[in-house]
């Protein structure tokens, strides 16, 4: 649905984005990851047409993106706020009208949202009377009110208490199921694992990692399995023989847990066949690396090598 091709953006001598090419599939949640200052916000601002790329193209549903596409997008920036002195309802209406919704329709939809999230009594309050979390809810509603096909959320969970964060999480998944493409940038790797189907990881202006979350996690997997068994450690190790390397064994509970890294050309079945005679196998699970570890590996491993010229600005 959304395709970026060779996006490059420079500010003076500083290259903020360097040839980013990636796909954001329709009707899925896409996570845009990367450390602070990597260029995520710049990339988002290019997609939302707040700023233009120096090189490269953004394609939406097969056509080059144009000014008329802004009404098909909803954008919740990281630096977000509201007019403090304006009333909540009036302000939400104003923002909706700027997105091209007629006043009547906007009012109807807003009332429905306010009812659903039990905040109807806020309508005539001034924004400065709201708590930060309350204001964030208003902002989220104004972002999605015009039913955008592409929803871009920059750090959507920051500033929310756990209950409201859960509310937003549920809402994101509901919108995804309704066919909305969601792109979110976050530092919370747990929410990436929970929400995202695909990710793109940007570090120092470059796209380092891109693709399906499950595939990436498997790709970064070390071919290690956790095997729970009943029996002695010695028996297990002997039975394992040369099919795999015994990384770690935890005993003490009812079952012992062994971490086994498979040898070259050996399948899990081969290992199981070996040990199944010696011990009573209770359970097997693949050790999939967490996104957190992948993030640190990808971002961390480049640390000493490359400091792109101009990055100091």
């Amino acid at each position: 649905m959304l395709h970026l091709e060779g996006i490059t953006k420079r500010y003076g001598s500083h290259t903020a984005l360097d040839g980013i090419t990636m796909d954001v599939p329709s009707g899925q949640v896409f996570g845009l990851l990367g450390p602070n200052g990597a260029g995520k916000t710049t990339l988002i601002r290019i997609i939302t047409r707040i700023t233009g790329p120096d090189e490269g193209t953004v394609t939406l549903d097969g056509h080059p993106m144009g000014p008329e596409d802004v009404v098909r997008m909803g954008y919740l920036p990281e630096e977000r706020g509201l007019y403090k002195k304006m009333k909540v309802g009036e302000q939400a209406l104003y923002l909706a009208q700027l997105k091209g919704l007629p006043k009547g329709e906007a009012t109807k939809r807003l009332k429905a949202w306010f009812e659903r999230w039990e905040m109807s009594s806020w309508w005539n309050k001034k924004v400065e009377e709201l708590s930060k979390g309350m204001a964030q809810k208003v902002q989220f509603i104004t972002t999605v009110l015009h039913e955008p096909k592409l929803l871009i959320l920059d750090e959507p969970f920051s500033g929310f208490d756990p209950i409201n964060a859960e509310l937003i999480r549920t809402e994101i998944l509901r919108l995804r199921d309704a066919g909305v493409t969601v792109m979110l940038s976050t530092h919370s790797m747990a929410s990436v694992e929970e929400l995202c189907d695909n990710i793109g990881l940007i570090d120092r202006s470059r796209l380092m990692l891109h693709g399906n979350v499950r595939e990436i996690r498997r790709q970064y997997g070390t071919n290690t399995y956790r095997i729970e068994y009943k029996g002695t450690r010695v028996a297990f190790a002997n039975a394992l023989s040369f099919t795999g390397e015994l990384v770690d064994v935890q005993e003490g509970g009812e079952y012992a847990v062994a971490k086994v890294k498979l040898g070259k050309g050996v399948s899990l079945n081969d290992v199981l066949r070996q040990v199944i005679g010696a011990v009573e196998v209770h359970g097997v699970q693949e050790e999939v690396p967490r996104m957190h570890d992948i993030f640190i590996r990808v971002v961390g491993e480049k640390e000493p090598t490359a400091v792109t010229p101009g990055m100091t600005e």
Partner: protein
Amino acid sequence: MNKIKLIIWREFITRVRKPSFLIMTILAPVLIAAGVTVMVYLSLQESDDHRVLVVDEAQIIGGRLRDSDKVSYYVDNRPWSDSAFKASPYTIMVEVNEDILNTNTVLFFYKELPSVTVQKVIANELEKTIELAKLKDEQIDPEAYGRVRKPLVMKLFDIAKLGEESLEQERAGIGFFFGYFMFIFIFMYGVQVMRGVMEEKQNRIVEVLISSVKPFQLMMGKIIGIALVGFVQFVLWIAITTTLVTAGSALLLKDRFDPAVIANTPMTTEVQGQLAEQAGMPDMEDVKFLQALKKIDWPLTLGMFLFYFIGGYLLYSSLLAAIGSAVDSETDTQQFMFPVTLPMVFAIFTAQAAVYNPGSAMVLWCSLIPFTSPIVMMVRVAMGNAPVWQLALSMLLLVGTFVATTWLAGRIYRTGILMYGKKVSWKELGRWLFYKG
């Protein structure tokens, strides 16, 4: 286009709805009207009757003093002691020395200091009488003296427009008033534009907005919306002030002024002028001013006023918007404000100079340079001494410049509003101009 209308409407309505707008709009004219009315009222108000004892041992005054509304005279040829005066019902004692015809000095004793107006009335009455006495003494016919004593009137004519008095100075004064008005407006509302931009940046709402509209639309919407606020406020001010002053003077000053006093042709026109001034009657200058008002080419002047007003406001408010976008807080605005306000202040001084010396080279240049031309050219337009080509050139330059400044400001603005926590220098601003959209 629809979006920019929405922005203009929001900028307008949120400001007009503020309690401070209502208070300022109503309070300012009430204060002005109250001030004017009270001042005029007080200046004419004389609470007590004054009983003036004129001690005239030399018998120069005689019985010729005329009582007026609040002042009555009693002439006595015998000397009075201070204590006798103190004990008497008289409020004022004037001693006319026998040497008065040489010294022209009288001594004025009072129990309670009367107002300046009363002092002047008494002085005028005495002067008139003494003058008559002097004329008699010198054996001069008072009527002949009256003819001789007439002050010189100098009428100014532009040789190119013979047949009518030019009254350029007075007209220039009126032009300066327009220029000054412009200065105040541009400054007041330009700063509001700057504050509005800063508010959006500090609120962090600006990025949400520019994901829906272009930064330039947002900036222009704000500039136009705030101009409308100012326009409405000024119209209301003028309407309310005029109503209040008219109503106030009608109520308070009714019958305050007795034309008979003035009609009583005093000896000198100076006296007449003074009397007229006290009573709020038009004196010579006021009459000239009224004539000048009639002489001004109003369609041209008002048309030019509107043009320079809009041009100057767009020019300065766009620059101020750019400043607002570049900074994080009010305190950071100082370094950028100074160079922007300097030409405006300079323009006001030049416009003032133009009233007295409209032909100077500085006035000519300042009426062409766009940063000062709105204010300075107004003086020249009202005066009617700006050749068409200069006017056209000045207008053209102004249009060109405000197009350029709004464009420049737009470029600084769209980068500045997204730049947080950065102390911005002039060099940095310059660099923003060249960032690609």
